[in-house]
C-alpha cells in the first residue's frame, strides 16, 4: 500500500517542495502563496472530481471544460439578467448542469454514440450556447453576496477549499463505500460483465454523467463568484488540468482505479509544480508543458506498471504450478524461496 507505485505523487510533492523551498524560498514558503494556490485549485479539483465520477463509469466526458464554462455563464445570467436571488440561481445552475449531463447520457446510452464523440459534440454545442447567452460579453454586476462564496475565509482558507473537500467527501463515499459505487466501477471496468451481473448499466452511465455535469456547473459557479463576472471564455482551459489530475490520480492509492483523493492530491501536486516554476521565473508556456508532460508520464507509467505486474504474477503462477506438481499443494505463490525449493524437490 505504501509502495512507491501507489503514492508516487506524494514523493514527487516532497521533492518538489524541497527543491522550490531552496530555489525560491522568499515567495514559495509564504502562507499567502499556498492560500491562493489552494483557493484557485479548488475549482480544478472539483471539476476533476466530477470527471472521476464519469470516468469510473467508463464514460469519457470531454465536455467537462465547456460544462464548467456553461455553469459559470448561466449562473451569472440567472443572477444578473434574470435577477434571481442567490439560492434559486444556484439550484437552477446545478439543474442546468445536470440536464447537460443527462443529454450526454442519452446520446451515449440511447443513441449509442461513443462517449468520446458524444461529449466532443456536446462541448461544441455548449460553447455555442455560452456565446449565445452572453453575446460573447462578460456578464458583470454579480452581487456582493454571491462573490462572498468565493472569498469568505474560514480558519485561513477560502470557502471553495472547504466546498472541494465536501464534494470530494460525498463523491468518495458514494464511489467507494456504497453498492452504487461498486456498480459504477464495475460498469467502467467491463460493461458487458456488469450488465450480465444485473447492473442497470444504462442508468449507471447516465447517472454518472448527470453527476459530472452538475459538479462541473458547480465548479463554474465558483469561478463566476471568484471573478465577480460571468466570463464566456474560461471553460476550455480547465479541460486538460482536470484530465491530467484524474489520470494522475488514478495511479495513486487505488492501484489504477480512478479515485477522489488521488485526484485531489494530483491537482495539488501539479499546481505546486507549476507555481514553483512560475515563482522561479519560468516562461509563461511552462504550465502547459508541465501539465501535458505530467499527464503522459502518469498514464504511461501506469500502463507500464500494470503490464509488469501482470507478467510477474503470471510468472509466479507458472512457477507455482510446476512447484506444486513436485512439492505438493502447500507452497504459497511467493516470488522467492518457498516456490523455488518446491520445484527442486
Amino acid at each position, binding site marked *: 500500500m505504501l509502495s512507491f507505485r501507489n503514492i508516487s505523487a506524494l514523493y514527487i510533492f516532497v521533492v518538489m517542495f524541497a527543491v522550490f523551498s531552496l530555489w525560491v524560498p522568499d515567495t514559495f514558503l509564504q502562507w499567502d502563496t499556498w492560500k491562493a494556490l489552494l483557493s484557485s485549485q479548488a475549482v480544478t479539483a472539483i471539476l476533476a472530481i466530477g470527471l472521476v465520477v464519469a470516468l469510473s463509469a467508463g464514460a469519457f466526458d470531454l465536455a467537462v471544460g465547456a460544462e464548467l464554462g456553461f455553469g459559470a455563464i448561466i449562473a451569472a445570467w440567472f443572477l444578473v439578467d434574470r435577477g434571481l436571488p442567490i439560492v434559486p440561481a444556484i439550484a437552477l445552475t446545478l439543474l442546468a448542469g445536470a440536464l447537460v449531463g443527462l443529454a450526454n447520457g442519452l446520446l451515449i446510452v440511447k443513441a449509442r454514440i461513443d462517449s468520446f464523440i458524444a461529449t466532443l459534440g456536446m462541448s461544441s454545442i455548449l460553447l455555442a450556447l455560452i456565446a449565445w447567452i452572453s453575446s460573447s460579453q462578460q456578464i458583470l454586476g454579480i452581487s456582493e453576496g454571491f462573490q462572498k462564496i468565493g472569498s469568505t475565509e474560514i480558519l485561513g482558507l477560502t470557502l471553495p477549499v472547504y466546498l472541494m473537500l465536501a464534494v470530494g467527501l460525498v463523491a468518495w463515499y458514494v464511489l467507494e463505500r456504497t453498492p452504487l459505487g461498486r456498480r459504477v466501477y464495475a460498469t467502467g471496468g467491463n460493461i458487458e460483465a456488469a450488465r*450480465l451481473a444485473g447492473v442497470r448499466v444504462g442508468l449507471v452511465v447516465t447517472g454518472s454523467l448527470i453527476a459530472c455535469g452538475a459538479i462541473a456547473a458547480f465548479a463554474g459557479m465558483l469561478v463566476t463568484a471568484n471573478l465577480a463576472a460571468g466570463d464566456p471564455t474560461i471553460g476550455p482551459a480547465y479541460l486538460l488540468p482536470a484530465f491530467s489530475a484524474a489520470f494522475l490520480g488514478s495511479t495513486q492509492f487505488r492501484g489504477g482505479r480512478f479515485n477522489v483523493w488521488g485526484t485531489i492530491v494530483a491537482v495539488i501536486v501539479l499546481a505546486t509544480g507549476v507555481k514553483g516554476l512560475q515563482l522561479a521565473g519560468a516562461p509563461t508556456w511552462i504550465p502547459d508543458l508541465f501539465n501535458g508532460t505530467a499527464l503522459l508520464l502518469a498514464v504511461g507509467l501506469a500502463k507500464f506498471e500494470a503490464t509488469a505486474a501482470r507478467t510477474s504474477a503470471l510468472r509466479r503462477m507458472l512457477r507455482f504450478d510446476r512447484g506444486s506438481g513436485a512439492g505438493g499443494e502447500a507452497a504459497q505463490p511467493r516470488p522467492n524461496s518457498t516456490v523455488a525449493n518446491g520445484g527442486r524437490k
Partner: protein
Amino acid sequence: MADSLLKIRRLSKTFPGLKALDDVSLTVGRGEILALVGQNGSGKSTLVKILAGVHHADPGSEVDLAEVEGSQVGLHFIHQDLGLVGTLSTIENLDLDQRLGRRALMPAPLRAEQERAEGLIADFGGHFDVRAPIDTLPAAARSIVAIARALDGWDHPNNVLVLDEPTASLHGDEVGKLFVAVRRAAERGAGVIFISHRLDEVVELADRVACLRDGRLIADVARGGYDHDDLVRLIAGEILATDTGIANRDTGEPVMSARGIQGPTIGSLDLDLHAGEILGISGVLGSGREEVAPILFGAAVGNVSTLEVGGVGIGRLDPRRAIAIGVAYLPGDRHRQGAVMRMSARENMTLPRLRPLRRFLGRLDQRQEKREVMRWIEQIAVRPDDPERALELFSGGNQQKVLLAKWLRNEPKVLLLDEPTQGVDVGAKAGIYALIANAAAAGAGVLVCSSDAKELALICDRVLVMRDGKVVAEMRRSELSEASLVSAGLGRAGPDNGGGSAANESGVTSNV
C-alpha cells in the same frame, strides 16, 4: 509429388498441469490435403499455435519447413475469423500494392488492380464484385479472398496453408465453393492442413487424415483407409472409461421450462430443467449449443415463446429480472462477459447481489462482505486465498471458481453454465465439477453447455445433443459416454456402444 513441405517430428508441448501435445509426428506433402481431426482439447489448436509461433514447443521437438530451390516454404494461416477488414473491398484486402510495384503514395491504377484481383479470385473459383466491401459478400466468397490473399504474392509455389475450422460459418452450398478453392490451392502445389469438426467434409476433401486424442497422434491414414464411422470411432475413442462419482439422482419438479427457444442458429428448441438435475447440451461448434444459455438468460438476441421458472410463467427475461427470480448465468467468455478482470475477487463475487450488504445511508458493509467472501474462498479452495487480489492475477481455474461462487452465493434455482471449464487446468476441473454437483444436490437445476463431451458424460444426468440448430438426440445417464455424445453430435451411426439412441437424423425436438 511426394516430396514433403512440412515435417513435424516428436512434437510435444507441456502447459502447467497439462500435456497438450505428446510426441506428435506429421508430414505434409506437396499438393496434399491433410485433415486434422480430434475433439476439443485434443491438441489441434495447440498444434496450430505452435506452427504460428504463438507457443513454443518443448525442447526436443522438431518442426522443419523444407527448403525448395533455395527458398524456405511459406506457412499461411487462415483462422475462423479470416482476418479480413470488413469495410474494405476485395481489392483493398488483397493489398496488391507491392505486387504491382507501386510506392505508398502513388495514385492507384484502378483498372489494373481490379483485373489483377478478379484474376486472383478466379484462380480459386470465385466470381464476384471485387469492389464491394468484404462485409457485403457471402461467407464463402470471403474465405476465397482469404485464401487468395494467403497464397498470392509468393514467387514460388512452395507453401503450406493451414485452414482452422474454415467451414464453421458456411452454409451447405458455400462449403462446396470453398472446397473448390482449397483443391485449386493444392493443385498449384501447396500443402494444406485442414481442421474441421465436420467429418463429411473431411471424408470428401482430405487426401489423408490425422487424428489427435488427448495430445497424442492416434491415427494417420491415407484416403480410402477410413470412412465416416471409422473417423467417429477414432475421434471419440472406444473406451468408456468414465468413472462418474456422480450417482444417478432423483430429480424433482421442473424449475425451468422453455418452449420455442429461437436464435440465430437455433430453429425452435424446447427444454425442461428439473430441480437437482444436471442437464447437458452437447454439439459441435455452430450447432447452436452456445446460444441456448445466453438466450434463456436474456443476455443475447433470441426469443423464447413461453418460459416458466419455478412454475411461474414469465415473459422475456433480461439479466436483471433473471437474477431476481433466481436464474444465474456463467458466460463462456470470462474476459469479455464473465468478469471485471481488474476488480478484486471480492468485488466480482458480490456484484450481482449487494443489497443484503447495504446498511444505513446506503453504506456497503465491507466487513461483512469480506467475511462472507472469505468463507466462500475457503469453501471453494481458491489459490491464493486473497480476496483483495485483482481477478486477472488469478489462474484460469481459480478465476472460474470465483465466478462460480459469485453465482452460487445467490442460491440460484437455475444455474446456466457455458463452457464451465474452458481454459481451466485439470486439477481445478475436478473442483469445479464438485461445485456444480453440490449446487444440483442443493436443489438447483443446472444447465451445462459444453464442447467437451467427456465432461458432459462425466457430470450430467441427461444430455441434449444439438446439430444444425436442432436437438438430434437425448441421452440419459445410462446411455452417456464420450463416444456416444461425439457420434451423435457429428451425425450418422455412432460406435457400437452409443448406437441405439444416438443418431436421430430427423431432428426430433426433445420434449420431456
